[in-house]
Structure formats: C-alpha cells, structure tokens
C-alpha cells in the first residue's frame, strides 16, 4: 500500500510536483569520493581497540587526583609518584631539623629522638649502682656503635658525637661534672673540665 500524500491527484495539484522535485534533485547528486568498488574498512576493529584508551587515561587522572587529595601537598604528591615509579624516595634529600644536623653524626637519626630525654638517664642519682651499671653498658654500646663523623664543623662536637642522645648523656661519669640539662638542642660550647 502506498501513501497517496505525496502522489496526490488532481484534487491537490500542489503536491503533484513535490515527488518530482525531490526525485529530480536527488538524481542530480553524485558522490565525488566514494569508491566505485567496496573495500571493507578496518575502522570498527580499530575503534574497538582504541575505545578503552580514554577510559584508562581518565582512570589514571582520577588516581592522580585522589593521590593529590590524600597527600595534601605537591611535595608529598611527588613522593607518591616517585614511589609509584619504583624509585627510592630516599634518593631525594629531605630537609631535616637543625638539631639533627648539629649532632654531626654520620648516621641518619630521626629528629624526635633528639628531643626525647629521659630524666633518669640524664641525671642519674649517685647511689643507684644498678642504674650506673646500665648507663655504663649503654655508654660502651654507644662508643662501639656510633662512628666518628668525618666532617664536622665543630671540633668539640666531633669529640663527643652523641651528646644529645640519652645513651651518651647516661654514659658520662656520674660524678665527673655537672649534668647536662634535658637537651632540646646541643649546647653551643661545652665548658672544658678543670684539670685537677
């Protein structure tokens, strides 16, 4: 069944030439670049291969944004990226507090360790023999384990490298001089002991 709307008869003469108009116009259209022979395109396979690529990129971007939000700072984000890349974060120098640098030790010591001072170790009582023996054992351990720093701007600091550590404070002779106060930072110039 064919619709008479576009093939109108004499009752609607205006519609009579409408199909002719459309047909004639469409017959005048010729493609200029369409191949005369069919060549199956590989485009659908390429598309199916490339389709996950934007998704992967978007997921990567989301991961980076989440890492930024969790890290809180661009510096930490750099560390996260370095960790993800498989590098060692220790290769990049991190700024340390002044107290840890002033110790002059060759070993890396955490900054809070310099601030933690046990009063019992810093000021041992004279009559506590057990504590004295323990302190001496700590002192010997500190002497054997702590290397002498090769480069130190302060020669006095190089003589006693572990002054700020509790072990070194406890390792000093109990009655050899004034006890050091709880160390927040190492004393700038320790007073020399009077020669008896």
């Amino acid at each position, binding site marked *: 069944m064919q619709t008479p709307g576009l093939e109108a008869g004499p009752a609607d003469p205006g519609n009579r030439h409408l199909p002719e108009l459309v047909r004639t116009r469409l017959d005048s259209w010729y493609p200029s*670049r369409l191949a005369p022979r*069919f060549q199956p395109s590989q485009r659908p396979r390429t598309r199916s291969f490339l389709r996950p690529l934007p998704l992967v990129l978007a997921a990567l971007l989301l991961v980076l944004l989440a890492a930024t939000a969790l890290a809180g700072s661009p510096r930490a984000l750099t560390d996260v990226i370095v960790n993800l890349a498989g590098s060692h974060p220790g290769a990049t120098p991190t700024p340390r507090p002044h107290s840890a640098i002033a110790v002059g030790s060759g070993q890396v010591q955490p900054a809070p360790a310099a601030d933690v001072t046990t009063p019992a170790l810093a000021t041992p009582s004279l009559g506590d023999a057990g504590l004295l023996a323990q302190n001496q054992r700590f002192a010997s351990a500190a002497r054997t384990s702590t290397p002498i720093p090769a480069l130190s701007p302060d020669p006095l600091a190089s003589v006693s490298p572990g002054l700020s550590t509790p072990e070194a404070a406890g390792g000093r002779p109990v009655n050899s001089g004034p006890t050091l106060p709880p160390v927040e930072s190492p004393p700038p110039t320790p007073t020399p002991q009077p020669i008896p």
Partner: protein
Amino acid sequence: MGMTPDTPSRQPEPVPDFESLYKRFRLPLYRVIRGIVLDGAAAEDLTRRAFDRAYVTRRPEQSTDFAPWLYGVAVGLALDYLSSRWRRLRGLYSRLPLLPPPRPDVLERSAEHVLSRLSPRQRALVVLVVYAGLSDAEVGRTLRMSESEVGLEVDEAARLMQAALSETDHPGVRKRHNP
C-alpha cells in the same frame, strides 16, 4: 567463493555477492542519506559506514530483501548522525551571527529548501517513499513505525513541503514541472 552457513561473518576480502550489492546500491544509498542529512561530504562518509556496517552484520541466509535492509542501515546511521551531540553543536555554531548565512537563491532553487523544513525523520520518510520506492510497510519496518503512522507522517510531510513551496516564489521548479 560462495557464502555457506559456516562462513564467518567477518572476512578479510569482500564477498562477490556483497560487491554486486555495493555496485547496485551505491548511488541510491548515497542519495537517500544525502536527502536526510543534506550534506554531501557527510553523506559520502555515512554511505561508506553504512556499507561497512551492512558487510559486518550481514547474514548468510539473507538472500532477498536487500533494499529495505540496506536502507534501514543507512537511515539509522543518518538519523544517528543528525542527533549526535557534535552535530547539534555544529548546528548551534552555524547559527552564530558572525557566520555568513547560506545564500537564499541557492536554497530556494533546490529541493533542499523543501526538505530542510522537515524533521530528519520526516525527510527519511519522504526519500524512502519518493526516491527509494519502498512501500509503507517496508518504510514502517525501517523506521519502526506502523503503516498508519507512516501514512499520517507522509501527509504531514507533504503539507509542510507544500507550505514551504508556497511561501517562497519558486519559479524555476514550477516552470520545469508545470510548463
């Protein structure tokens, strides 16, 4: 090399049957698509894609009724193209006052003016009925409409086209068809 039921649908070389199909429907498919999208370059690209899709989705047992099937693929691609977001953005862009409008004489002397007054679906309906010569039932299957809906839409398209013809003076067309 003939098509057997064991032949996979994706083959590296075109089947001779499909090659003859391409030669037979290359021009009609291009014209139908261009009558819908009203853009020559886009119609060529869509024709190529329509044959690609038809080549991939063809069935071995499909030996008859090539025309409605191929026109259905082509019309679906053309309507998808017109309704895509990029096309809508391009349409908005072309409406900016900075761009020169299309020349009225070019529009008025051609059938594009009449077809441009229709919706894309109505244009598909008109070119399928008028140019491709499909029956209302075939057009309904192609556009997923009932036969009665096809009749109503064709009447509406004819009314709109007649109005477009009457509102503009169309001496060239009238002189040629009504001497």
